[in-house]
């Protein structure tokens, strides 16, 4: 709503042009939707190679640059403008980078031997000529890209003062084929879309993945039995269990912040109501009692309240209720249709699908600013916002012609990137929790 229409239209034209050439390839395109005057200029110099082993199979500096660019808080110097290639702090000629108006510079070296990648890097403040970080990070096997994401996280935290969320995973659902040939997959991948792994496949719809707080399990809805049912699956082992297959709708599972309970929407007592399930006993506590559709429960970070979607006032709006039961309070008043909330880690920002007429966009309501709302997506049929664990970015689902795609967008809506994940229809993104290195 605050963004002028022209930059959106321009961005869409640019996006369409870019995507026409990139369809099907696994790759990433960062689009600056509006200028980001406050973005911090930083140079990540291509890393040098140490030792006699083979070259690093991954370009650490490139991955770090992509991470920093897409969060919207940084603006990296394009490789073509990187005129010198220091790999240690002592080789940096600060006058060069001051002239290029860079605020920070990252230099480093990799060694790759026996399948283990080790990266030594340094972060320097260009104006003060002062070293801020000097660390060594290692990884092996399928975790080589994680080395770069962890470096980006260290840089983010040092400069921004908030933990980085690049070394995290996302879950989403893909669909290929139509009708009886449809194949649905629940997939997890790195936060930038690389390293996709299928968790479960089905010929019937899969939806609403939700991460356990320790990142080891996913709760989701599957129609494989002919009706909706809620499953919890261990990602590493593949073991899974049905936690609700009652008559009617079994939907919208979300783990509590302590991982011990699951908020769900069930209609076995007549119409969709919000329940909290004790995962140890399976016991249900019913929170809502009315004839409306009550669904999409989301825990507040302290686990005390649940924000959910209800059409008790006619159209869907967001309401908040104590997780132990009580009287729901309506919390959204702008827009005809508000649903599918995602709550930031600090509880201040609530992202939601806001519909007006036939246009559905992702809106962010800031409760610390008296409920001020901004749109962070252009529409027309955007769905399923999901905050990164540090609320620096959001994932959401959108339509590009006949297929669904995912976008990552900075929290202020200014930097948007399409994740190219699959040839199929991609939807239902869910950003996972922090990972332990």
């Amino acid at each position, binding site marked *: 709503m605050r963004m002028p229409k022209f930059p959106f239209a321009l961005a869409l034209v640019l996006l369409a042009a870019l995507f026409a050439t990139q369809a099907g390839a696994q790759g990433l395109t960062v689009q600056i939707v509006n200028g980001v005057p406050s973005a911090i200029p930083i140079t990540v110099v291509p890393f040098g190679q140490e030792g006699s082993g083979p070259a690093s199979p991954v370009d650490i500096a490139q991955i770090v640059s992509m991470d920093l660019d897409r969060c919207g808080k940084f603006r990296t110097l394009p490789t073509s403008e990187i005129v010198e290639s220091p790999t240690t702090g002592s080789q940096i000629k600060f006058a060069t980078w001051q002239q290029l108006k860079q605020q920070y510079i990252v230099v480093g070296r990799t060694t790759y031997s026996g399948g283990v990648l080790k990266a030594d890097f340094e972060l320097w403040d260009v104006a003060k000529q002062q070293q801020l970080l000097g660390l060594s990070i290692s990884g092996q096997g399928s975790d080589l890209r994680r080395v770069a994401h962890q470096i980006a996280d260290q840089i983010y935290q040092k400069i921004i003062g908030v933990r980085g969320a690049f070394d995290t995973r996302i879950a989403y659902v893909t669909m290929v084929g139509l009708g009886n040939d449809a194949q649905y997959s629940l997939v997890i991948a790195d936060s930038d879309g690389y390293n996709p792994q299928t968790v479960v496949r089905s010929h019937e719809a899969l939806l609403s993945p939700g991460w356990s707080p320790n990142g080891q399990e996913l709760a989701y809805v599957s129609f494989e039995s002919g009706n*909706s049912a809620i499953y919890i699956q261990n990602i590493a082992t593949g073991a899974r269990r049905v936690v609700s297959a009652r008559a009617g709708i079994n939907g919208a599972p979300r783990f509590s912040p302590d991982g011990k309970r699951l908020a769900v929407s069930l209609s076995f007592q007549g119409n969709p109501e919000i329940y909290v399930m004790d995962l140890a006993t399976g016991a249900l506590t019913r929170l809502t009692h009315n004839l409306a559709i009550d669904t999409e429960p989301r825990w507040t970070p302290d686990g005390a309240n649940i924000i959910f979607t209800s059409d008790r006032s006619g159209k869907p709006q967001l309401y908040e209720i104590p997780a132990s039961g009580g009287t729901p309070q309506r919390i959204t008043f702008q827009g005809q249709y508000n649903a599918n909330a995602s709550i930031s880690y600090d509880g201040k920002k609530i992202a939601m699908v806001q519909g007006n007429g036939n246009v559905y966009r992702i809106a962010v309501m800031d409760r610390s600013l008296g409920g001020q709302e901004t749109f962070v997506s252009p529409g027309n049929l955007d769905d399923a916002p999901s905050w990164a664990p540090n609320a620096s970015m959001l994932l959401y689902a959108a339509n590009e012609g006949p297929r669904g795609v995912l976008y990552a967008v900075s929290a202020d809506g200014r930097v948007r990137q399409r994740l190219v994940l699959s040839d199929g229809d991609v939807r239902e993104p869910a950003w996972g929790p922090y990972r332990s290195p």
Partner: protein
Amino acid sequence: MNATVRVSVVALFCLAAAACAKKQEIKAAPPPPEAPTATAPAQTEGVFTPADLQSNACLRTRVIYFDFDKSDIRGEFDNIVACHAKYLRDRPMARMTIEGNTDERGTREYNLGLGERRGNALASALEAAGASSSQIKVVSYGEERPVCREHNEGCWHQNRRDNIVYTTE
């Protein structure tokens, strides 16, 4: 009685039953499905058989459509409701699944609720017209089973629907 006449008589009865049904909706217990009444002459003359599911134009119609974000059954589908209700009354062993569906607008989980509301609306109408609740199961697929995938009203209205599936004829 030739087929055309019989269909007309059935349709007339169905319309009458549907008209009554609306007034009866608030009553808790629908009439038992196996009890033909003396005031329903069509029933004694034409009892539906499984063959009619293939040959009867009304029974062959297994889909009804809804307005955007609505679950009211439009008047144009009263005859469809009535003939399927009569089939369920005539065949107490028959079983039906109603699949409720929505268009793609809005969120997937909310649309599951909306699809169920549409399925329940048809189930209630069938029960009000004499079918037994034990004969009908409602499943909502929300927006997950579109028959048309373009992003416009021409497509959306085809997706806002209940599908009738006989699981036991």
